[in-house]
Structures are given as structure tokens and as C-alpha cells.
């Protein structure tokens, strides 16, 4: 997917002026956090489970080579194939090759962020293969030619009216009298369309929430069951997953499942949780004839052992997006690439470059809510600061910013100079602001005064000066 991350400022002003988006986002962010809170309140050991989930991921990351090879061995034993791909291009090639070998014309797809990351739909289309998204949200945005705006709720930026309009526009057979007012009617309409696609597809392409080294299984978590039809009906099942999705055992997988849905949607479990192992065996009633796992690195092994190592713990639950006040203000599209929210602001600069994505780590108050809700305790604010530090070190911070920081540092290190400047500035501002107690406008403070007044300093001088003159303050 082409990034618009460099145009972050334009993206945000567009998002902030979109009233429909504002409504949609308030529904999302009010709903998921409340449900998460309730789910956690019912599970007193939730924090201990978070620690356990974090420890599982840390252990895996410290022994990644071992578990990946063990996983491959189990997949092969079960009759499947693992394709090791260093880059997005290699993964696209592996998938296309497998589709072509299968003679595929149509590929049904479960929701996959890695699919978005490597832009597989565009690639298949270019080569004459039709990809059909089967997750309702993904299906809607595919019809609209939009990228997902949330990692677990890709069409969250849309109202049901907008979805109805999209269906009327794209589903040519739809009679004008058919009511699409209710979400249920929208779902039925999409289901009717998708049923035909499920049955006709040659290849089913899914993501994986986890890969299990012990058994060579992959885990699929959905609320719609679409992934199950996607993998079980076509002749070939291709799984696309990034390599940090691996966990050692089935037991570990269940620990992570216990924090995943609760963190994501506030459900105890998602409606469908499926473990797929290899192709159809002789006595199986259904299932694919071929089972392929496309394992993607795409820069992840480069993060191992470095300052973004813990980011590889991420289980893509979306809790950091749901709780982020910046995400709530601007939505996912403003981030300009596949991922969004705090996890996106940490991950995107690593994947598409800090120069392109330089705004993202800066557009945060570092409020810490993301780390607070993260089921695997990723120190997201620390990592946002790390990106800022790298920008500064690489001189990607703008010249005026650097000069301002340098000036502030020079003053702050010299208390006498600081005092002199402070006393003059405070006296002047206090005198100017005396009548109203605040400013509606001040030179060079446009960023502040655009939307808020600036309180004037208290009259009488700075605290340090007054204190050392023997003052005790008023009302003492």
C-alpha cells in the first residue's frame, strides 16, 4: 500500500473536519474500552495473565530460530509447506506462485494485516486473480477501495448509512426497494454476495493470530466465521503470517487467547477460534488439499535485540488504538499506512522509514494509556521517544526546533540567565495580561491561542524571586 504518512498534517486536518468520522470514532472508542473494563473486572487474574503472555512472547523472541524451525518441521510432517520470505516482495511472489500453480482465478481472503502490509490484493489483481475479502469490514472497504482504518475493525470509520450507499452502488442486482437500514440487513446482503464467492474460490488466503511450534498449527480468531469458510472450502489454503506470531505450545496459545479478545473487544473469547493443522487428512470430511504457510520477516529480525524488540510481542488486539485519545481524534486513515494508533506510530517508521513517517512518533502526548492497556505490556511511550531521539540524532528534526531546544537548554543550564529572562518576561506578560487575566492572542503563540486562551502569569514576579525576597504568598 502506498503511504500517505508524510502528509500527516493534511490527513489530520481532513479527519478533524469530518463530522461523520467523528461520530463513528466516538462509538468505537466509547464501546470497546467499556467492554474491556467489564471483561477484566470479571477476571481477577487478568494482570497475571498479561505477565504470562508477555513472558511467553519474550521467551519466543529469545529463541525465535528454534521455534520457527520446530514449527516448520511440524507443518511439513502434517503435509504442508512453509515459505520463508525476507521481504514483502518475496511473500507476494510466493503467494502468487502458489495461486498460479493451483490455477486460481478467485482467492477468498480472511482479514490479515500482513496481507495489507505486503499489499497482496493489488498484486493478485495485477496478475489477473480476483481477491475477495470475506470479513465484513474488509469486504466493505474493498468495495470502496479504501485501506483499513483499524487493525481489528477495518471499516470502523464508516456509518451504516455509508455502508448501505456502498452496497447500493456496487451490488448492481440490488432492488431499490430493499431496506438496508439495519446492520442485520447489511450483513445479510454481504453474506448473500459472499456465499457465492466462498463456493467458487480456488484458493483461501488467511492470516494467523498465532503459529504453534508444538503442533505446526495456526490459530484463526474471528467473530464472523468467514475465515473458516475461507480456509476449508477452497482446494488450497495459504496462510500469511509474520514470524513473531509464533508461540511454543498449545497451552501458551490458550494463555494468549485469554488476553486477546478481552483486550480487543471485551469478549471473553471471540465467536470463532479455529486451530488448523496441515491439509485435509485421509479421513477428514473437509479441508484443503494443500496447506501453505508464508512466513514473513519484512524487517522484524532486524528489530530483535534492539530498542524496538518488545514491539515484536504485539498480538494485534487493537487495545492501544481503542484507548488512544489521538487515535480517537483523527482515526486510522490519518496515519497514512496499514497500521495506526500507538502501535502503528511505533511500527510504521521501522517499516517504511523514519523520514516518511517522522510525524507519527511526535503526534503523541505520551499519556501512557496505551502501555497501561497493552496485554503484553509493550513500553510504547518509551519507543515513541526512541524514534524522536533518532530523528534528533539524524538531524531530521527541523532547524527551528533544534535551535529552540538548544536555546532552551543553554538558558536552563544557567540559573542566573534563566532568572533574568524569566523575571523580565513574566513582568511583561503579567502587565499585558492584567486586565483580562489571559490572552486570546500572543505573538509566536499561535499554536496555543488558535483554540484556547493563554492564562497570564500571576502578578508580582516569579516564585523563586518572590520566595527569596521573603514572601509567603497570599492567604498564608
Amino acid at each position, binding site marked *: 500500500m502506498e503511504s500517505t504518512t508524510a502528509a500527516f498534517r493534511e490527513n*489530520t486536518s481532513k479527519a*478533524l473536519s469530518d463530522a461523520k468520522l467523528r461520530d463513528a470514532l466516538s462509538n468505537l472508542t466509547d464501546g470497546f474500552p467499556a467492554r474491556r473494563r467489564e471483561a477484566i473486572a470479571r477476571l481477577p487474574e487478568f494482570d497475571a495473565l498479561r505477565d504470562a503472555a508477555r513472558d511467553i512472547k519474550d521467551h519466543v523472541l529469545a529463541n525465535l530460530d528454534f521455534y520457527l524451525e520446530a514449527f516448520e518441521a511440524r507443518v511439513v510432517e502434517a503435509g504442508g509447506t512453509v515459505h520463508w520470505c525476507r521481504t514483502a516482495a518475496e511473500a507476494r511472489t510466493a503467494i502468487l506462485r502458489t495461486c498460479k500453480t493451483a490455477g486460481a482465478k478467485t482467492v477468498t481472503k480472511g482479514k490479515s494485516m500482513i496481507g495489507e502490509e505486503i499489499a497482496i490484493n493489488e498484486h493478485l489483481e495485477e496478475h489477473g486473480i480476483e481477491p475477495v475479502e470475506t470479513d465484513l469490514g474488509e469486504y466493505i472497504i474493498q468495495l470502496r477501495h479504501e485501506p483499513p482504518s483499524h487493525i481489528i475493525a477495518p471499516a470502523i470509520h464508516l456509518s451504516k448509512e455509508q455502508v448501505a450507499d456502498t452496497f447500493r452502488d456496487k451490488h448492481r442486482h440490488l432492488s431499490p426497494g430493499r431496506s438496508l437500514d439495519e446492520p442485520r440487513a447489511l450483513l445479510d446482503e454481504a453474506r448473500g454476495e459472499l456465499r457465492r464467492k466462498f463456493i467458487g474460490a480456488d484458493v483461501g488466503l488467511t492470516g494467523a493470530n498465532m503459529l504453534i511450534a508444538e503442533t505446526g498449527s495456526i490459530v484463526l480468531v474471528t467473530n464472523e466465521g468467514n475465515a473458516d469458510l475461507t480456509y476449508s472450502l477452497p482446494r488450497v489454503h495459504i496462510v500469511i503470517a509474520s514470524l513473531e506470531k509464533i508461540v511454543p505450545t498449545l497451552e501458551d496459545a490458550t494463555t494468549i487467547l485469554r488476553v486477546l479478545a478481552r483486550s480487543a473487544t471485551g469478549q471473553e473469547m471471540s465467536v470463532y477460534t479455529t486451530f488448523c493443522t496441515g491439509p485435509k487428512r485421509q479421513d477428514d470430511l473437509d479441508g484443503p488439499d494443500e496447506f501453505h504457510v508464508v512466513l514473513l520477516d519484512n524487517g522484524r529480525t532486524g528489530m530483535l535485540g534492539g530498542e524496538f524488540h518488545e514491539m515484536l510481542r504485539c498480538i494485534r488486539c487493537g487495545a492501544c488504538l481503542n484507548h488512544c*485519545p*489521538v487515535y*480517537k*481524534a483523527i482515526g486510522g486513515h490519518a496515519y497514512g499506512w496499514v497500521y495506526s494508533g500507538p502501535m502503528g506510530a511505533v511500527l510504521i517508521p521501522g517499516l517504511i522509514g523514519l523520514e516518511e513517517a517522522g510525524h507519527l512518533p*511526535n*503526534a*503523541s*502526548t*505520551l*499519556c*501512557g*494509556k496505551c502501555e497501561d492497556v497493552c496485554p503484553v505490556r509493550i513500553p510504547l511511550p518509551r519507543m515513541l*521517544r526512541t524514534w*524522536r*531521539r533518532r530523528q*534528533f*540524532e539524524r538531524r531530521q*528534526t527541523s532547524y527551528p526546533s*533544534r535551535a529552540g*531546544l*538548544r536555546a*532552551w*537548554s543553554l*538558558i*536552563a*543550564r544557567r*540559573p542566573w540567565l*534563566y*532568572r533574568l529572562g*524569566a523575571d523580565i518576561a*513574566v513582568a511583561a506578560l503579567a502587565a499585558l495580561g*492584567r*486586565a*483580562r*487575566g*489571559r490572552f486570546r492572542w500572543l505573538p509566536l503563540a499561535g*499554536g*496555543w491561542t*488558535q*483554540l*484556547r*486562551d*493563554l*492564562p*497570564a*502569569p*500571576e502578578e508580582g*514576579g516569579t*516564585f*523563586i524571586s*518572590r*520566595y527569596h525576597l521573603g*514572601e*509567603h*504568598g*497570599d*492567604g*498564608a
Partner: protein
Amino acid sequence: MIGSSATEPITVGLFVTCLVDLMRPTVGFATVKLLRDAGCKVSVPKAQTCCGQPTYNSGDNPDTRAIAEKVIEAFEGFDYVVAPSGSCAGMIKHHYPSLFANDPEMRPRAVALAGRTFELVSFLADVLKVENLEAAYDGIATYHDSCSSLREMGVKEQPRALLAQVKGMTLTEAPESETCCGFGGLFCVKYPDISGRMVDAKVDDIIATSADTLLSGDLGCLMNIAGRLHRRGSNIRVRHIAEVMAGMTNRPPLGEPVEKEKPRKEAG
């Protein structure tokens, strides 16, 4: 109380923070009073300026270290260092040690200072165990949990427990009291439109409580929220919690002129 015994009183170095120093000295005086009333021997080192967050959060670690060294020098030798801000106390407590991770000379000094540094409200409640504040305030207040106080310094129940000791005050909770106000230091001027949307949501939440007073423990948040409240024409009074706890509410609330003192009684 620790300081009321026959032994030496505990010594506290007040890190007043640059915002309080420049914008709201009353918070500094209130902090001194609260600490002295609780039996502490308070000193205010003249050599203090800023904790270094503007440079730190902009990725400028060399300049931040230079500032932090000055702070560490100025505040060694006290039993405790107290700041009327979760943000600046959090900077010293959590970020100074990591800034000097590779500096064998400074690192132990940074760690030692971090161990002695507290945010004011939690220091009063958790260390000094203040239980009898002599303060009164006529109003319905709501308390905004600043991000650093709440998530870096573990301040949540302490301000509520202390405000419960203030006579005449009713405390009402805002549902989103833990949500960031959108200040974020330089964030609010670098991304004013995002910050504006965030502070608007914060102001909606506060107005919906019908409180007539907003309190918090961080002046940055308070200036941001007060600024937006005023721009939207609200007459909710905004004060740092220290002013109320110390009974120092003679000065007009944040962003209000001295002249408008009298009609304020009807406000809210």
C-alpha cells in the same frame, strides 16, 4: 507524622517546576505551606530552572543530560525532593536514571535522586500521612488525573482522600478524568488541531459534571484546560490542588483577572 517527633525534621528540597515559577507562584507558596505545616524543613534552591522535559521529549538527550546534571547538583543533600507536578517529578524519578544509564559517575547520583523524589500530593498522603488539612473551599470540584501523576507516579486515591478533608467542598468525578487533556508539552503547539480536539473532549466531560471548580496536580494540564474553558465561555474556576489544600485561594483562579474577583461568587 514523621516531622513532629523529637528527632530532626525531614528536609525537603522544593522543585517548584518552571511553569509554577513563571505562571503561578501561588502554587509554590501553597506547596511550601503544606510541607511546613506537616513538619518538614523546606528549602528552595535558587539554582533550579527546568527538569528538561521539553528537550527530552523532543529527542534531544545531550541537552537534557546537561540540564539534568544541574538539577541533580542542586537537589542533592535533601531527604526528599518534592514537586507540585506529576510530570516533572516523573521526569526526575523515571527518566533521569535511564538518561544516565551509560554514565558511571552520574548514574548513581541520578538513581539516588530518583529514589528521593515525589509528586506533592502523593508525598503528603503516602509519606507524611497528612490527615487533617486545615482548609475550606466553597464549591463543587472535579479532579483531573494528569497522565504523569496517574500513570507514572501512581497518584489516584491520594488527591481524593486529601480533598475529602477540605471543609465545604464537594468532589464530583468526571467519567473521563483519566483521559489525557491534550497538553503533552510541546505537542500542544506542534499539533494544535489534534490537541484542540482532545482538550475539547476533556472540557465537555468537565462541563457535564456541573462542577464549578476544576482541580489537578499539574499546571500544564490546568493551563490547557483553563484556556479552552475560557475560550468556550465557561466560568468554571481552575486551580492547582495545592492552592485549595493550603487554603490559598485569595488570588483569582487561573486565567482570571484580579478585578473580576467579586462577581465570581455567582460563577459556576
